[in-house]
């Protein structure tokens, strides 16, 4: 019960502080821009290009859009949650709550669930919005373009955000807000560059570079989840072509996805353990 109360409070706090609405407003602006770009692209394709090539062009734009959504969701996840534990511990806000008849685990899990609710809503609206826009706008000319395996891809982006949320919570139980933000985004940056090294290594047939990338993914598997999501969502033709900025020369395995799931559990477990033992 205590966890649900804290989840509700976290969600209401984001809404009351206009955080949620601003994120959705920025997301709407993004969708409007994406729709405008797609509109002109489709118009030009209709007058100059065959439907087959036009479909690949729309597919590529859709992947760019989904990649931008992924980045925005990752940044939003870290920025909104970075202060929730460390900030409340530093300010002493947590004292009035932690002395109520709620366990520390319930308190932490409640906040975690509240943020998961928010990021799920955000992803559903953004990924759903961009997919619906693309499908409806391309319906007349191309019969409707949609991500190949939308649900699987979206689930992987969701897991990526949950992973970053759990890592932010883990650091938030030990470090200040600023340090926590630097660490969480820094680790994602590490995974990001590792992912590109892995792809470049695969393209240039450099197994050692691929291994460096895999090692970075083991350290922080967030970017590999996006690359797996992109692989799931891209059209089979782009997959066959191989390397593009948003497809994969080296596709993260299902084992890496499972590893990311374990990573979430471990990060959350460490956060619970540390938060349960530390002085407030």
């Amino acid at each position, binding site marked *: 019960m205590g966890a649900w109360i804290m989840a509700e409070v976290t969600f209401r706090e984001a809404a009351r502080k206009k955080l949620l609405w601003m994120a959705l407003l920025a997301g709407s602006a993004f969708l409007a821009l994406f729709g405008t770009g797609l509109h002109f692209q489709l118009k030009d394709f209709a007058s100059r290009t065959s439907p087959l090539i036009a479909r690949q062009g729309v597919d590529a734009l859709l992947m760019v859009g989904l990649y931008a959504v992924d980045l925005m969701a990752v940044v939003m996840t870290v920025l909104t949650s970075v202060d929730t534990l460390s900030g409340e511990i530093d300010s002493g806000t947590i*004292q009035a709550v932690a002395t109520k008849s709620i366990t520390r685990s319930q308190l932490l899990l409640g906040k975690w669930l509240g943020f998961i609710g928010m990021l799920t809503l955000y992803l559903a609206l953004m990924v759903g919005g961009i997919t619906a826009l693309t499908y409806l706008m391309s319906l007349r000319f191309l019969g409707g373009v949609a991500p190949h395996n939308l649900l699987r891809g979206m689930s992987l982006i969701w897991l990526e955000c949950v992973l970053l949320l759990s890592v932010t919570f883990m650091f938030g139980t030990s470090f200040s807000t600023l340090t926590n933000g630097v660490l969480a985004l820094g680790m994602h940056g590490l995974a990001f560059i590792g992912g590109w090294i892995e792809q470049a290594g695969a393209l240039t047939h450099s197994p050692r570079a691929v291994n460096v990338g895999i090692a970075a993914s083991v350290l922080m598997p967030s970017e590999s989840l996006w690359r797996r999501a992109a692989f799931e969502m891209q059209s089979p033709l782009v997959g066959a072509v191989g390397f593009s900025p948003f497809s994969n020369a080296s596709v993260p395995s299902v084992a890496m996805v499972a590893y990311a799931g374990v990573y979430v559990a471990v990060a959350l477990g460490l956060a619970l353990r540390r938060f349960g033992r530390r002085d407030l």
Partner: protein
Amino acid sequence: MNQSPDDLAIRTRDLRKVFGRKVAVSSLTLEVPRGEVFGFLGPNGAGKSTSVKMLLGLVRPTSGEATVLGCPAGNVEARRKIGFLPEHFRFYDWLTPIEFLRLHGRLNGVPQDDLSRRVPSLLDLVGLTPHCEKRLHDFSKGMLQRIGLAQALINEPDLIFLDEPTSGLDPGGRRLVRDIIKEQRARGATVLLNSHLLSEVEVTCDRVAFIKHGEVLQTRQLRTLLEGEIDVALRARKLSAETIQGLEHWASSIRANGERVRFTVPDTEVLPEVVRYLIGCGVEIYEVTPQHTSLEEQFLEIVGEDGGL
């Protein structure tokens, strides 16, 4: 004291907390019976707030043991019956006072029906009913302290920890705190008051503990402290050595210096008899003044002028 564990709201044995190299609480041994208003007195840095945090489970003791309402300190079920106003009270200031009290009530498992009754009545008690539509971030420091006090009472607690409850309050607010403490005592609740305002402690507490370097130096009944042995200042002429010696029948610690004599009596009831004795001896009395020892003087005597710094 020999209280049974069930009669005690708080019981600690050699409770100790060390932060790195700093000993915040060295060895706190304390017993607070249920229904008592207990004052925690000590200079800044004496370990009062850390002790309270250990009793509430916010801070883990390095060693020692503590039970609160018969359960180990920090027990979640026991906390259901505890109210707490932290020294530097911070909260979700985006809530209105009603939402805030309801949230804290729900976190303590108070049923919705009880909350519907208690929230308006507590807002009324702390004088915030006219401000119930505002968000807490629009509240003054005094108003925040009042709402903090209300949240500490939302679960009708058996034990209330008030850490510097009058901080930021005007005289009206301070009086409100005193009245609330009296009401809670009348209800049978135990109150642990942590305050550096000795005048406040003097009028509200049944018993006080003097703490320095995280150790209880002395625990005293406040009535004994204030109404116990009394120093008396006498100014008189024609005082012979025999007359002064005769005062020993009622008094102790007799110090004579010319016309001025100071002595200690067990209570003020004996003073008329002393005066009759002196007149009978032909002494010309100009002044007989009982010198009450204030809590502040007691504090300085027990804790020391340096305040433990």
